């Protein structure tokens, strides 16, 4: 992991421009948040293929659905709370049921949104999106992985939800890292415990892994970038190979990563899983780092589980 930090929304905006140059069928939608979601970079480069639909997310989702029936590939962005929450029915009925080729790239997910507070901190989107048939759900942890995901989902013919963050996070991977949809990334071989993490808290899990190693505890980190389809094989392998299983996410512990892993374990390889995340409560205002401490989703919170 590098010292260098970058927000995944930034990586998204940059990659969209690259992708737009290569593929003329890509169109981008936003709902008056182009500066924050970083779609403004695409808008500047390709004004004819950028559609600012104003503060009307429901219309935006269905419009993208209609356009996709005519061969365009829409990337649709707004804050996660307005995408997965406000426009849920449009995503369900206009996009997922007809299995249309729309990529929903939602930024500002989780409590790490910070000062805007609970109304803007989406902690239910993984839950809402992964329950939709036909939908694939991806939640990236760093710049490199996000760049890969933005390009990779273009190749999928069908709906995708990509969860992105506002706050900057450490760059974890090298440019040469190979990723695959539905295949989680294993970091380390430790057998004392597995930390399953997704999105912005993967960096926390890696920090914890490094500190614990100095204390003689050897854990592994699994970056679960694809929440659906979940990597069953990896979950079962880790349950077999490691003594302890923990999940961590900037999301409600109900319905997100921890739940997805639990579902696999219960059916395929019964084992105890400790779920770290937002414990079924709404967020609050504060700085991103302060909120991570407050909601106990930092590297120190992982470490303290081992040093009691």
């Amino acid at each position, binding site marked *: 992991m590098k010292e260098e930090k970058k927000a995944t929304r930034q990586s998204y905006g940059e990659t969209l421009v690259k992708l737009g140059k290569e593929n003329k069928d890509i*169109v981008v939608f936003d709902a008056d948040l182009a500066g924050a979601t970083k779609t403004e970079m695409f808008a500047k480069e390709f004004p*004819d*293929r950028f*559609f600012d*639909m*104003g503060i*009307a997310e*429901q*219309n*935006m*989702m*269905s*419009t*993208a*659905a*209609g*356009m*996709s*029936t*005519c*061969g*365009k590939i829409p990337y649709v962005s707004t804050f996660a709370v307005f995408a997965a929450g406000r426009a849920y*029915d*449009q995503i*369900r*009925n*206009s996009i997922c*049921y*007809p*299995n249309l080729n729309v990529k929903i790239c939602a930024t500002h997910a989780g409590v790490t949104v910070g000062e805007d507070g609970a109304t803007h901190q989406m902690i239910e989107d993984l839950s809402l999106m992964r329950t939709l048939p036909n939908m694939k759900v991806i939640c990236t942890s760093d710049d490199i992985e996000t760049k890969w995901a933005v390009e990779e989902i273009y190749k999928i013919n069908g709906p995708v939800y990509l969860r992105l963050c506002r706050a900057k996070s450490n760059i974890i991977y090298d440019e040469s890292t190979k990723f695959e949809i539905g295949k989680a990334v294993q970091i380390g071989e430790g057998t004392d415990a597995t930390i399953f993490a997704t999105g912005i808290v993967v960096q926390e899990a890696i920090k914890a892994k490094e500190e614990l190693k100095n204390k003689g505890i050897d854990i592994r980190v699994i970056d679960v970038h694809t929440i659906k389809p979940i990597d069953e094989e990896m979950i079962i392998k880790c349950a077999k190979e490691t003594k302890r299983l923990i999940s961590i996410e900037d999301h409600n512990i109900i319905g997100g990563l921890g739940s997805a892993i639990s579902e696999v374990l219960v059916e395929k390889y019964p084992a105890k899983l400790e779920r770290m995340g937002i414990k079924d409560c709404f967020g609050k205002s504060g700085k991103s780092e302060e909120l991570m401490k407050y909601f106990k989703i930092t590297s120190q919170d992982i470490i303290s589980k081992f040093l009691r």
Partner: protein
Amino acid sequence: MENIEKLSEIAKSIRRGIIEEVYNAMSGHPGGSLSIADILTVLYFNELNIDPKNPTWEDRDRFVLSKGHCSPALYSTLAHRGYFDIEYLKTFRNINSNLQGHPDMNKVPGVDMTTGSLGQGLSCANGMAIAGKLNNKKYRVYCLLGDGEIEEGQVWEAAMAANKYKLDNLCVIIDNNNLQIDGKIEEVMSSYPIDEKFKSFGFEVITIDGHNLKEIIEAFEKARQIKGKPTCIIAKTIKGKGVSFMENQVGWHGKAPNEEQYKLAIKELN
């Protein structure tokens, strides 16, 4: 006027198809289906540039039935136009049928958009119309909504967008039969004045008798001439039109006729 007489016969047959569907399924929405039968007849037999042999033809005109619960009317029209066998209408809503309660674009040839959750169709139609402009295609997009359906806020989000993108390749039709499930439009949640609303949202508005085939034909012709803005045709209709005991009766929104009523309805439509 031979054409009108021919269309009138087709409309009657489409209405019989609607009754067959709802009677065989013992469920479905006859009232609103009968109110749009004449509009769909003109669309599919006079207006739309389509090819039933090639339902996914890129350059075809598109039709979005935003009030998806009136699928019996759409299915009957598509069958009469040759997209599939008229006999197949009898499978409507059956577990093994492709004719779902609400239209599914992946199951039924000729259905351009999956609909059912009210208020979303106009947005989808906008997307098709914008794509048409982006791709330099000449096709037109038609979208039919109910007068109750336009109580959904998303419709007005879409109306704003149709104006912003100057969608003169878009023609909206409002089925103004003045009834929704719980009663009269003005009593449940008035969407009136519909004409003034669409005018203020930047549409060219044409009001017609939605059962007068000549007026429907002329309204579509006029809409094609309008440049720089979308058109909205407000069709004054009668819910249940064509079946005397169903006309203007709110109770026939989503109810199937019994055997006696079915026979009477078919007799009236012959």
